[in-house]
């Protein structure tokens, strides 16, 4: 019987090994990536089932226990994140493989596959990690892979990649300074160990502030979100999908790990309210800017800025006392957002390929070849807005329950306003499909119309988006299982 500890080993090693093979032999890139992706998805599912059956566990790398060695945490939340990563990774790979060759400018298609697999492995390492410095190295790994993937789109995407690189490097350095202070105070880098020995004094507070600041930069939380719209809006569709759905989520995941783990004694009402306010402003400001966009992908990118704000609401709601519903709600919402956002970007990618240009005026008329994509877009929008029975609905329901239970009607109002604005801008996007066809007089050279007819687009493009959108809906239908999974945690506060 294969021990369940093999699962995380595969999830870490397989993407890296596949990336090396694909780097050495680019000819086999697509089959190797797709096969590895399928294996990784199966393994992630296996880990989720294992956690549901046996509960969470911890693995010591190299057989060395903390504080000397590094560990891996495999609990409900990390298993769910690993599954999210696998789903988006596979769907994005399928999408990119199905793209018609020679249509859109790509810096060098050969390098997409190793970078994609490297990013996959780095993200898995990040979700499994339980050691603060290991997290730093994994964060840098993910950053460089992301920069490479963004830059593949060429042109203005490279300027966006540069801004992203600067912001993320600054974030990492601040994070590392926090780690240095913590190590100097406690001589421990392991999450569980720190949680036992931590005391709320000045050094710890400064360290917590620095690390949170660094992670906020990486998660593009208001007001540190300046780098995200260009980077996510201009990248290739598959890249935007994984960036918005998983990379941002990973930074948020670590904020949650820290504040519900070692820093829990520091999570006073002021800190919690501050984080919640940042989230609230992100929701409203991001939503407002999304409404003003005229380009489909930029709208979705601003939506990411807005949606991550919901995740931050977990802090004030949990600090006020409603820990269980706040935790379940926020995590479910973040997972649903990941799947739905990836679906939106992939669908938008297919739509833009069909029409040749992403501006709203051009998306009307004959939709043959993009029907599946628009359906996926609609379903994903439903989840993002929070219509029952999607995952988005379940998440917001739990959060609303938490708000009502603690009498925090301010956050409830934020929740409802955010939902309204999300509905508004997504409705605007969907309406673009219903408008009559229009030929734009001045097409920029890079906005070429497709040379072949719409039939030339592979259905796999829309299907990859549809599967993710349906998964986001299924998350809602499977709500009890999801709640049980998220409970199986070493990180759930008592």
């Amino acid at each position: 019987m294969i021990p369940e500890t093999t699962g995380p080993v595969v999830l870490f090693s397989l993407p890296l090994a596949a990336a090396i093979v694909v780097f050495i032999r680019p000819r086999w890139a697509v089959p190797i990536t797709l096969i590895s992706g399928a294996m990784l998805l199966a393994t992630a599912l296996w880990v989720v089932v294992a956690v549901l059956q046996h509960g969470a566990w911890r693995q010591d790398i190299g057989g060395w226990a903390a504080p000397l060695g590094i560990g891996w945490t495999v609990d409900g939340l990390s298993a769910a994140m690993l599954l999210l990563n696998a789903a988006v990774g596979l769907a994005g790979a399928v999408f990119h493989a199905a793209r018609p060759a020679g249509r859109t400018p790509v810096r060098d298609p050969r390098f997409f596959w190793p970078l994609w697999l490297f990013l996959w492995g780095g993200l898995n390492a990040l979700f499994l990690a339980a050691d603060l410095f290991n997290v730093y190295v994994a964060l840098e790994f993910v950053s460089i892979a992301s920069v490479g993937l963004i830059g593949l789109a060429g042109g203005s995407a490279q300027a966006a990649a540069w801004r992203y690189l600067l912001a993320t490097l600054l974030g990492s350095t601040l994070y590392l300074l926090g780690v240095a202070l913590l190590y100097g105070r406690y001589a421990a880098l392991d999450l569980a160990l720190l949680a036992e020995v931590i005391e709320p004094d000045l050094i710890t507070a400064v360290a917590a502030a620095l690390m949170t600041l660094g992670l906020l930069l990486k998660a593009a939380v208001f007001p540190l979100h300046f780098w995200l719209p260009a980077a996510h809006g201009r990248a290739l569709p598959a890249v935007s999908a994984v960036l918005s759905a998983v990379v941002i989520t990973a930074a948020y995941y670590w904020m949650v790990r820290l504040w519900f783990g070692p820093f829990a004694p520091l999570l006073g009402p002021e800190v919690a309210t501050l984080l919640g306010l940042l989230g609230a402003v992100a929701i409203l400001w991001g939503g407002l800017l999304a409404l003003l966009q005229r380009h489909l992908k930029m709208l979705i990118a601003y939506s990411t800025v807005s949606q991550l704000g919901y995740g931050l609401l977990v802090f004030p709601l949990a600090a006020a006392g409603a820990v269980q519903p706040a935790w379940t709600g926020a995590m479910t919402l973040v997972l649903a957002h990941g799947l739905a956002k990836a679906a939106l970007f992939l669908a938008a990618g297919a739509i833009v390929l069909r029409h040749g240009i992403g501006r709203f005026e051009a998306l009307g008329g004959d939709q043959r070849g993009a029907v599946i994509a628009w359906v996926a877009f609609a379903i994903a929008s439903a989840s993002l807005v929070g219509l029952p029975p999607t995952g988005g609905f379940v998440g917001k329901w739990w959060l609303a329950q938490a708000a009502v239970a603690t009498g925090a009607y301010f956050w409830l109002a934020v929740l409802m306003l955010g939902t309204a604005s999300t509905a508004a801008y997504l409705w605007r996007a969907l309406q673009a499909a219903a408008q009559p066809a229009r030929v734009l007089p001045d097409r920029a050279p890079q906005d070429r119309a497709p040379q072949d007819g719409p039939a030339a687009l592979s259905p796999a493009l829309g299907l990859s988006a549809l599967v993710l959108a349906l998964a986001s809906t299924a998350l809602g239908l499977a709500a009890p299982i999801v709640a049980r999974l998220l409970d199986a945690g070493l990180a759930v506060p008592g």
Partner: protein
Amino acid sequence: MTVYLSLAGVLFLIGLHGFFTAGSLLRRLLALNVLTTAVFLLFVVMARLAEPLDPVPHAIVLTGIVVTVSNTAVALALVVRIAGRVRAHPDDAGSGSRGDAG
């Protein structure tokens, strides 16, 4: 040790100041490198203060140096490629987006 601890703080400040007030892309990178050096200095000072000498921060800093040079190399490769483009639009805040991504 006081000297090096203060040096770490001063370097951190110089790096931070340089990062936010730099006019040139390259200078931002240099400031970032100074910033990371300050953090490494803190690690090593703590290693030295511990009794007996703690080798774990040394390993951390060695790893950090390699990661930093990798970041610098990628950043430079990127900077060189966008610098030519950037000259054409000195005040262009990035096309295609409306919002505060200025």
